[in-house]
């Protein structure tokens, strides 16, 4: 059963940009990677629930505004600290629209 929901137009998300929105009650972060690929991760930092869109994104790294936790924007893996990661949502591009499936994905949190 597919549950892809439209979150924005492809044109709304340029390379090197990020946007945050709520889908089925979950905060998701949309990332426009260098090269144009799109990734969708949990919208809050695994550390303290700070909205990641309030941090920085340079096309490769995501940096939380609160404590400079750094994540690899390609994979969602934590770089520092490296024992945490961002949950990733399946994403599909359909007729110029970005669709996300939140089913079965829950945000991950660090125990630190």
């Amino acid at each position, binding site marked *: 059963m597919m549950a892809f929901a439209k979150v924005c137009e492809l044109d709304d998300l340029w390379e090197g940009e990020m946007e945050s929105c709520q889908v089925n009650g979950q905060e998701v972060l949309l990332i426009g990677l260098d090269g144009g690929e799109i990734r969708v991760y949990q919208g809050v930092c695994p550390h*303290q*629930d*700070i909205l990641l*869109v309030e941090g920085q994104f340079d096309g490769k790294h995501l940096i939380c505004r*609160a404590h*400079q936790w*750094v994540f690899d924007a390609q994979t969602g893996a934590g*770089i*520092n600290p490296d024992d945490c990661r961002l949950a990733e949502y399946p994403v599909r591009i359909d007729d110029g629209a970005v669709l996300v499936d939140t089913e079965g994905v829950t945000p991950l949190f660090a125990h*630190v």
Partner: protein
Amino acid sequence: MNNSFSIKIDGTGEEFSVANDTLLGAALRQGLGFPYECNSGGCGSCMFEVVSGDVKELWPDAPGLSARARERGRRLACQCEPASDCVIKVRLKSDYVPLHRPARVTATLVEARKLTHDLTEFCFQTPEPADFLPGQFALLHLPSVEGARAYSMSNLPADGGTWNFIIRHVPKGRGTAVLFTQLKTGDQIKIDGPYGLAYLRPESPRDIVCIGGGSGLSPMVSIVRAAVRDPRLIDRKITFFYGARTPNDLCTEELLARDPLMAERATVIPAISTPTEGWQGEQGFIHEVMQKKLAAGFENYEFYCCGPPPMTDAIQRLLLLDKRVPAQQLHFDRFY
């Protein structure tokens, strides 16, 4: 009238009561691990969601809550009092469970020691023991000043019921105006504390680096003084970098003279940021001086820092982004 409200945490069995208190204050006083950092509306770490019930916001424009977070229904627990029983959403975490539960006590000013032209150490006494960890802070409720001011303790918790704070006189600051010009020895204030996560971790196996700027001196002095006395840290190197604008803003000599053990055990490196004729010591921003003076291998240290936001930002970027020091080895409380 019933002033006590019950707060249930959604999806957990946890419940706490709040009477004439903020949600955060009440949760911590009852021993819950409610996430927070500045307890002053600045950092956003104590964000929660109201599922049902009403809260009253003490400071609706608090900078710790972005417009987007507010629109998502988030609020700051340090700036909310309940107006009814509530159900809220928040992830409690064990590392925020207070070792010493914060309490509101009446304190008497016993001494004000001038350290520089704008830094003074204020010494308060409470009948109860001052139970805190070196590096923690308290909220000071001053007579005729709206809201509380957060200041870090500069002394050791072992000093009985003594709470010392090194405070900088802020021009036009209403809180410091009362402290520096109105409060007299024998006057009473309310102290609410302790709070804060940037305390000394004596169990860490690493050498210690403390970095302070401006009135960020206060908690660093407490940490260094505690570290040089802790038998578990007998083999650790302790280095204390202190940054000020000019030689006039430094008081490290006096602090060392007052604590010979600190002078003997810790390496204290003062630096000034404004070039000054006749100054023989280090010059530059304190994070640059630290980078120059520390032996390589930044990941081998436990870092504690406190100071103005541009300083702590620069230190975070240097240590976490450039030097890849594990995030859990850097201790500081964000006051912005």
